[in-house]
């Protein structure tokens, strides 16, 4: 591995920052436990104690003394999810989201850990920035958070940040997400320097000269709407370039929010050739196509990279299946109404996704039989390892990161508001099947659906 000196880590609580709380002592009785990576698929009493999965007992047989008992018969317990791509908008845009609201949204979506992007105002570029954010997370984060720092100073794409010092201050990795690193020479230097500082580099792949002025995918729909297109090649050419540079430097990259079929193909080929490359796909790219943009609704359907054509969506799904795409990342991007209540081309890019990712993918991909439940659970937890963090698991002895879901529950997104400070959910108004009832993150109860906890109390 290129990231020298990094020991295998033991827990998200040690590696990330979270508000200290009380370790839960729970028995999730008769839960249907599914952890495909650990090979668990059966009904158990899950015992959570002292921050860990203390035991997977035979159904109805766990020792419940001193524990809160949650009747989980008919409910599903999975390893909680990990999102390597979240915008907490802090510092600078706390009116859209902050550490507290963003991690509450994550907890409500079943996540036990997230990574926050650095394209804030100002961008997270110094050790002091990292330290201040970690302090905020220890004061108010519901789930463990890691912070990335920018690759280049002020995200200008010109000079590298002090990456060693940033790593020492606790930066989990690096990303100029929101902007590409246009200059191939700068990209190369960053990847060379990775051999000194460690830490994965997460890349927003876009050639701005090819996407110039675009607001949606370039194709028949953009042709009809007269909206400037962002062609698939604006992404795929940069993925190919950076895979080649990473191979040349024996360095490691993580490609963010893949959207185009060609990009998936390039990642697949690079992996086959031994390049250290990981990739993520976002729920909206897995569920939607550019046909939605005919509505001209920027609240739900304007994001970068854009939602593309059915063949691209199918390629991303195939990438999930064969592992070319190892993780699902929401690219949770909160915006306030005034940035979205404007004509499509003028609106801000981005949609929120933390609170709906699992339910949306369960509804759109698992229920119709496109992918299996086990694969979804595996990919929802696949975002930790590319950043040298432990994959959440329900194996006894592991840190307790558990999400309890009712796979039959129907709910309408937005009807009870959001935990996020922003409402620009791509799922707004949709009825989804499958709901997170409870999230245990790093041994603490991070979320309970109110109606569910009332049900338990009665």
């Amino acid at each position: 591995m290129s990231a020298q000196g990094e020991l295998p880590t033991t827990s998200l609580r040690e590696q990330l920052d979270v508000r200290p709380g009380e370790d839960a002592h729970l028995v999730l009785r008769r839960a249907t436990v599914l952890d495909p990576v650990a090979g668990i698929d059966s009904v158990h009493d899950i015992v959570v104690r002292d921050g860990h999965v203390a035991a997977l007992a035979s159904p109805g047989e766990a020792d419940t003394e001193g524990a809160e008992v949650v009747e989980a018969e008919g409910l599903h317990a999975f390893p909680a999810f990990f999102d390597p791509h979240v915008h907490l908008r802090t510092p600078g845009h706390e009116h859209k989201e902050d550490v507290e609201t963003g991690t509450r949204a994550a907890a409500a979506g079943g996540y036990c850990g997230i990574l926050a992007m650095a394209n804030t105002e100002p961008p997270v570029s110094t050790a002091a920035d990292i330290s201040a954010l970690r302090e905020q997370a220890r004061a108010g984060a519901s789930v463990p958070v890691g912070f990335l720092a920018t690759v280049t100073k002020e995200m200008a794409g010109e000079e590298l940040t002090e990456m060693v010092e940033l790593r020492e201050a606790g930066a989990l990795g690096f990303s100029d997400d929101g902007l590409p690193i246009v200059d191939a020479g700068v990209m190369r230097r960053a990847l060379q320097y990775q051999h000194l500082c460690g830490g994965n580099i997460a890349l927003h792949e876009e050639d701005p000269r090819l996407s110039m002025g675009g607001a949606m995918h370039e194709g028949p729909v953009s042709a009809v709407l007269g909206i400037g297109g962002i062609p698939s090649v604006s992404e795929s050419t940069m993925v190919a370039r950076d895979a080649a540079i990473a191979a040349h430097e024996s360095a490691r990259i993580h490609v963010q929010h893949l959207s185009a079929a060609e990009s998936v193909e390039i990642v697949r080929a690079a992996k086959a050739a031994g390049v250290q490359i990981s990739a993520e796909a976002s729920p909206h790219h897995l569920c939607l196509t550019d046909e939605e943009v005919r509505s001209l609704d920027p609240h739900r359907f304007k994001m970068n990279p854009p939602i593309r054509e059915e063949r691209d969506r199918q390629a991303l799904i195939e990438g999930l299946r064969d592992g070319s795409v190892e993780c699902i990342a929401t690219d949770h991007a909160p915006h306030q109404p005034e940035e979205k209540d404007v004509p499509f081309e003028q609106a801000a890019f981005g949609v929120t996704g933390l609170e709906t990712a699992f339910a949306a993918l369960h509804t759109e991909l698992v229920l119709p039989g496109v992918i299996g439940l086990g694969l979804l659970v595996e990919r929802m937890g696949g975002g930790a390892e590319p950043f040298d963090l432990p994959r959440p698991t329900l194996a006894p002895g592991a840190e307790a990161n558990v999400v309890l879901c009712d796979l039959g529950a129907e709910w309408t997104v937005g009807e009870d508001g959001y935990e996020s400070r922003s409402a620009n959910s791509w799922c707004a108004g949709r009825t989804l099947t499958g709901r997170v009832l409870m999230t245990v993150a790093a041994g603490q109860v991070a979320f309970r659906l109110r109606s569910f906890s009332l049900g338990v109390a009665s």
Partner: protein
Amino acid sequence: MKHLLSIEQLSREEIEAVLDRAESFAEVGRRDIKKVPTLRGRTVVSLFYESSTRTSSSFDLAAKRLSADLVSVKAAGSSVEKGESLKDTVATLSAYDPAAIVIRHPYAGAAQMVAGWTAASVVNAGDGKHEHPSQALLDVYTLRRRLGALDGLRIWIVGDVLHSRVARSNLIAFAKMGAEVTLCGPPTLIPRGIEALGCDVSYSLDGIEEADVVYALRMQKERMSESFVPSLREYAASFQIDTRRLNPRQLLMHPGPVNRGVELSGEAIDSPQSLIAEQVAAGLVVRMAILYELLAGGDPSAPSADAEGTRPTPIGTPA
């Protein structure tokens, strides 16, 4: 019809209803007193975020000919310049309880958004590069007057299709009326995937002799600096419609304003085949018909529709 947001949303029957109504207003235009009381006491707001001569003036005059009270707001010199959002501007203007808001805006979907924010009927007078439905209606009206019907007609739309809302609306309107449309221009200015609309695409004027109608688009000078074309000279050499390329059987149209010597030669503009002046004249009656259809047509409680029948009665004539 509550709004006119795009040609795409109209059926052939709805297009024909507007054209038939326009025919009746053409008769009014030949009278000494060209004004009818149809929209007396109602307010029309015209809100233009882009410069416009013929569209804004013809909508304004159409509203006045129908006796509406008219409020014209141009972005320059208004609170838009002070940073007011479109939504807030529309809320402000909606306080006057307008019957219609006519809006031109530089971005696609603006008119549709406005329709969601106001109780007024909304007319899209051009939204970005998306649609310009009143232009398409007046162009269909002009052709129908000259030729009777568009069914089976072969129409070539030539020029900068990529940046043209007129091209999009007209392509859809011509196709809905039964014409076969070919889009023609340099490959850099034809949007990728536009064939999905059921048209042909040609990257040269070869074959234009088959066209019954040649519809030339405005070529903007700034397209050169963006490398869409190497020079206006080369563009004109390849795509200019002149009297040599135009045969006497063919009709010539252009939405204006024309760059003489670029997309059209001066001779072609002034040739008897040119319908350009008729298009401008059609603009007024078609826009009167649009306001009438949205605000008085099809609504039995509207003050003038039933009382005066389909033929609008001039002011001063006993109903």
